[in-house]
C-alpha cells in the first residue's frame, strides 16, 4: 500500500526512534512509505492560531503534494494529524479559503483540490490494513504486559474534522491494537486528556503536572508503560518525566513507548532496532516483563 508519508518535524529531530521504528514495521505491514521530504512543518496549531491564512497555505501545500502523489497522506503524529485534518476539512468545505490558498500556492505550481485523505498510522492499521492481516505478523505476543493507551488531544478533538462523528470507533483503536498484540489495555481517565505540551513554555509546572498526573493514574491502575501515537506527547511524557517528577515531588518511572515500537516488538524486532534503548525514561522494566533485554 502506497502512502504519502509525512513524518513531521519531531520524528526527524528529538524523537528519531519514532521514525526508525516506523520504517521497520512498514515492511511487514506492506506499507510503501514515500516520504514527503519537501513538505513543511504543519505549524502544530501554533501557526493556525496566530495566522490562519499562513497555516492554510503551508498545510495546503503539503496536502497538494500528497494529492500530486496520488496517495493518502499518512501521519505518525497526533498533532500533525489534527492540524492537517483540520485544514483539509475546512479547505474542502470553504470555497473562499480554498481560493485564497490556491492563489498563494500558484506561485509554486501547486493547487489544492481536496482529493486526499489524512490518516494516522493508527487508523490505517485498523481501517486500511485490518487487524486480521496484522495478527499473523505477530511473532512475539506481549502477554502479561499492561499497556495504557495515551491518545493525545489532536487525534480525538475536534471531532468533526477528524471524522469521529462518522467513525467514533477511532476512539478505541489503541486499545484494540494493544489487545491484538496480546497485552492488556489499561482503562484510566487520562487516556483522552492533554499531556500539557502546548503550554509547557507558558506555565511549565502546570504543563508537567498535567502529564505527570496521567502517567501516575495509569501506573496506579497497573500499567507497565504508556503507548502514544504522538511524539509531542512523548516528549512531554518521557523527556520531561524527570522534571515532572521533580515538580510534583514524587517519583514517576513509567516508560513511554511510541506506537510503532510496540508493534515492532510484537513483530519480532529487537529493542535496539527500535531504539528502545534511547529513551529518557528507561524501558528496561517493561521489556523485562516480556523477557527482552535492552
Amino acid at each position: 500500500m502506497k502512502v504519502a508519508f509525512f513524518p513531521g518535524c519531531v520524528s526527524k529531530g528529538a524523537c528519531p526512534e519514532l521514525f526508525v521504528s516506523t520504517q521497520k514495521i512498514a515492511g511487514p505491514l506492506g506499507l510503501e512509505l514515500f516520504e514527503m521530504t519537501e513538505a513543511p512543518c504543519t505549524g502544530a496549531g501554533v501557526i493556525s492560531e496566530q495566522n490562519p491564512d499562513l497555516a492554510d497555505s503551508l498545510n495546503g501545500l503539503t496536502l497538494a503534494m500528497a494529492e500530486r502523489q496520488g496517495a493518502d497522506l499518512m501521519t505518525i503524529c497526533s498533532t500533525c494529524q489534527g492540524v492537517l485534518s483540520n485544514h483539509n476539512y475546512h479547505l474542502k468545505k470553504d470555497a473562499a479559503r480554498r481560493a485564497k490558498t490556491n492563489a498563494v500556492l500558484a506561485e509554486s505550481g501547486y493547487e489544492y483540490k481536496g482529493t486526499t485523505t489524512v490518516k494516522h498510522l493508527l487508523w490505517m492499521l485498523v481501517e486500511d490494513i485490518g487487524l486480521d492481516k496484522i495478527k499473523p505478523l505477530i511473532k512475539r505476543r506481549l502477554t502479561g504486559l499492561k499497556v495504557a493507551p495515551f491518545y493525545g488531544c489532536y487525534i480525538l478533538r475536534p471531532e468533526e474534522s477528524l471524522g469521529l462523528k462518522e467513525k467514533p470507533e477511532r476512539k478505541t483503536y489503541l486499545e484494540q491494537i494493544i489487545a491484538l498484540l496480546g497485552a492488556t489495555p489499561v482503562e484510566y481517565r487520562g487516556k483522552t486528556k492533554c499531556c500539557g505540551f502546548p503550554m509547557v513554555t507558558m506555565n511549565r509546572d502546570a504543563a508537567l503536572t498535567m502529564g505527570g498526573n496521567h502517567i501516575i493514574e495509569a501506573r496506579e491502575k497497573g500499567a507497565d508503560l504508556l503507548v502514544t501515537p504522538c511524539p509531542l506527547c512523548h516528549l512531554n511524557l518521557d523527556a520531561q518525566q524527570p522534571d515532572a517528577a521533580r515538580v510534583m515531588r514524587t517519583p514517576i518511572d513509567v516508560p513511554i513507548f511510541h506506537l510503532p515500537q510496540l508493534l515492532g516488538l510484537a513483530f519480532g524486532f529487537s529493542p535496539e532496532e527500535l531504539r528502545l534503548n534511547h529513551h529518557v525514561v528507561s524501558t528496561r522494566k517493561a521489556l523485562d516483563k516480556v523477557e527482552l533485554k535492552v
Partner: protein
Amino acid sequence: MEWTIVVGRYNPEGVYKGGELGPPFPAPWSDAPRKTYQTFKVDLPEHAMILDALIQVREYQDESLAVRCACRSAICGSCAMWVNGHARLVCTSRLGEHLVDGKVTVESPPSMPIVRDLVCDMKPFWEKMRKVAPWLENKQPIPQGEEYRVANAAMENLIQEVSCIACGACLMDCESFAVNKNFLGPAALAKAYRYAEDPRDATRPDRLRRYSEPDGVWDCTHCFECVTQCPKHVAPLDQILKLRQAAVSAGFTNNAGTRHADAFADSIKHSGRLNELTLMPKSLGFFNIKAQLQSLPSAFNLLRAGKLPPIIHKSIPGVTRVKAIFKKVGGRFK
C-alpha cells in the same frame, strides 16, 4: 423501555445507605470526596434524555436526590454534570447515546467543589467571570438618545459567546484548570473576548493586557475539551485563540506564548521545519535566566539518551516554496 442509571451521591451530613462507595478520584482531584453510587432503573421512551431519568428517580423513587434543573431545554444552563466522566448538559443528552456497559453514570464533577449529590458549587466559575470585568465600559461619548452605530457583523461576531448559558461544562472538563485552579478558564475567557471585541467598549487595550497575564489566555492548553463539551457551540477555545491574536496584534508580546509562536514561525520560515534545539530557549526568552536554567536538565537528558536534534539544522529541500508562502501571507511573521 427500561434504562439503568447510576448516580453518584454525596451528602455532607452523612453517608448514604445503599449503593457502592466509589474509588477515590485520580490526581489532581484526589481531595474530592468519594461518592456513593446508587443504581436506579427507569422506564422511559427511546428518545428520553438523561434528565428525564433523573426527574423520574427524584419524583417516584427517591425524593432526596438533589439535581439542579429548570428549563429542560438547554437554555437555563442548570444541569451540567459528569456523564460517564465527561461534562454534559443532561437535558439534551439522550440516554441511548450515553450507554457504557448498558448503563449511564452521572455525578457531580470532582473538578468543582461539591454541595450535594449532583449539585456542585459554582462559585469558582462566577469568581473567574468577575475577574475579566464582564461588562461594557462605555466608549465616550455615549450617543445621546440613540444607539451606537455599529455594523451587524460586529454584533454577530459576539453572538457566539452571547449564546453561552453559563452551564460550566467547559470549566468542569478544562485540563488546565484541573492543574491550576487560578486559570481563568474557557467561559470567563470567552466572555472576555466578547467584551474586548465589542466596538462600544473603551478599555480594549487594557483588557488585552490583563488577559495576557499569567493565568490568562496563554495558560490554555489548546486541548479542545471545552469545544467538545459545550452544548451551545460557543467554542471557547476559538474565542481564546482569537483573543491571543488580538493581544499580540495590540502589542502585548512580552510573554512566552508570543515568543513561542514567533520562534515556531521563524524556524519554519528559514528551514521549512521545526528546530527543536532553539525553540525552547527562544520561547522562554534569552534573558529569562531562571527559565533557561530550569529547562537545562531536560536538554541534558535528551543528550544522554541520544535524542538531541543535530546542532546543524538542515532545511527541507524546496524550502524556497515555504519562503515564498511566508512572503505572501506571513503577516507579522514576514
